[in-house]
């Protein structure tokens, strides 16, 4: 059963499209990364899934239904959008209690999730004084309250220290391993490479890729050989491949051994002969370079 489905979603703000004809499905039992540069429309899409923003066209379904038709939505879907979007004057416990009560979730569950995210000690403190890391944990506690099958996190690691990042990664892996659906957005490919099984990549509100992480890496990571030599022009002439790139030659059609054999045979000294494995980040940049809203 598909947990989240977007069908031809559109969203325009004052005529400017933020999301355009976006369709994808998010399946249970794995972490699905929702990847795209800042301003690509990730948060807007998540808000439409959660019934906060009204789509200009198309539909977003959760468990086969529009979100607003769910009777006790928090028992089905838990979401963390903006960790700082809480009333600072309320204690962590009361904040969670009000959320729990609205969905008929027993008050005992509040203590359980506070314990689970490590905030039990500060349960009675006003959340206005929480650090970003603590707020993030509180937001995750709220998402876990209803023991939901579907979890949606918008940029959960933003601004966290390494400990916090590791904790969230492990949590997401664990939730997916329990068979839940985990849909998490990020603008960092490196982050998604560590946690996600599947990727939905968007740029300028449009779908760019909907693929497994392995496939994404395999498809986009074509390596090349970097050759530097004081007699670079001769090397280029000799191997009849590669293109000059600054002070070096970039060769994709030959291996280091092939190039080395040829130049050694001709007695040309080499300064460098390296196989360069492009990073995932580079592959992602390549994929989204045409869809960046702002380029530096």
């Amino acid at each position: 059963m598909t947990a989240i489905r977007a069908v031809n979603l559109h969203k325009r703000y004052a005529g400017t499209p933020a999301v355009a004809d976006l369709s994808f499905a998010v399946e249970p039992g794995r972490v699905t990364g929702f990847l795209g540069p800042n301003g690509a429309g990730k948060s807007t899409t998540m808000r439409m899934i959660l019934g906060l923003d009204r789509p200009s066209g198309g539909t977003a379904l959760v468990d086969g239904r529009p979100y607003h038709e769910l009777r006790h939505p928090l028992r089905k879907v838990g979401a963390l959008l903006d960790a700082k979007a809480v009333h600072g004057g309320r204690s962590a416990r009361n904040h969670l209690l009000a959320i729990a009560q609205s969905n008929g979730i027993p008050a005992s569950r509040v203590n359980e999730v506070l314990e689970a995210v490590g905030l039990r000690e500060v349960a009675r403190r006003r959340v206005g004084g929480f650090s970003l890391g603590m707020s993030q944990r509180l937001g995750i506690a709220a998402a876990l309250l209803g023991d939901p099958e579907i979890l949606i996190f918008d940029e959960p690691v933003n601004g966290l220290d390494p400990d916090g990042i590791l904790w969230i990664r492990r949590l997401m892996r664990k939730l997916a391993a329990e068979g839940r659906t985990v849909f998490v957005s990020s603008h960092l490919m490196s982050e998604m490479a560590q946690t996600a099984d599947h990727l939905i990549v968007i740029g300028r509100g449009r779908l760019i890729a909907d693929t497994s992480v392995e496939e994404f890496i395999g498809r986009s990571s074509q390596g090349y050989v970097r050759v530097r030599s004081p007699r670079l022009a001769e090397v280029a002439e000799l191997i009849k491949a590669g293109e000059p790139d600054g002070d070096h030659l970039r060769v994709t059609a030959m291996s280091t051994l092939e190039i080395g054999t040829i130049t050694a045979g001709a007695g040309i000294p080499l300064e460098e002969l390296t196989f360069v494995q492009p990073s995932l980040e580079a592959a992602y940049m390549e994929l989204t370079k045409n869809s960046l809203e702002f380029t530096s």
Partner: protein
Amino acid sequence: MIDILRSEWTKIRSVRSTVWTLAVTAVLMLGFSALTNASARGAAGGPVPGWQAIILGLTGTMLASLSMATLGVLVISSEYRTGGIRTSIMAVPRRMSLLTGKIVLFVAVSLVVCTVASAAAIGVGVAISQPPSIEMGEVARSSLGSGLYLTACGLFGLGLGTLIRHTPGAIVSAIALILVLPTMANQLPGEWGASVAAYFTTNAGLLVVSGQGNGTLGPWSGFAVYLAWVAAAVLAGAVLMQRRDA
């Protein structure tokens, strides 16, 4: 709906602004009653008539209406300010149920607190001015009228808060509609102006506190007119809340 009411009760009781605005309301009611009754007793040089002691006992209603309107605004605008409204709507995606829950809970809390504060204000006033006799039925009617009036003012604030979503903007609008514009309407010239003034928000609404008509409207018809103003603000807010992105 019970779930939503329990949740809203937790929300309203767990922030300081609720305690503060309610405390200010009570202090204004009691304080003005004590001051005006003391000065009336001094001016009369003897006992003050019972009906006058009751009316003076509710002098604080004018300003308390603003503290209650502020609480009404904050019930919703604080959620828009913090972004907590998104959490609320995710929990209760039927937005009209969410708004109804807020309204019902606010009205219940406000009616209890404001009616008790009004009765206490009259009690304090009577204790100070010591009228020879007092009609208990009139005390009860005035307290209830004042409680209803203050609650309607709070609901006016809640409606404006939903409509405007911005705390200072909504509070300024509430002050204008509750205090400033009704006074200005009284300056309108001619018969036409007098009719507008009679029907204008609190000019009509305050009749239920004094229990006397203003020539055009009686106490309860005046309150009904005021409720129509409040309903207009709440309905406009509800329509926009339903349609707007959260």
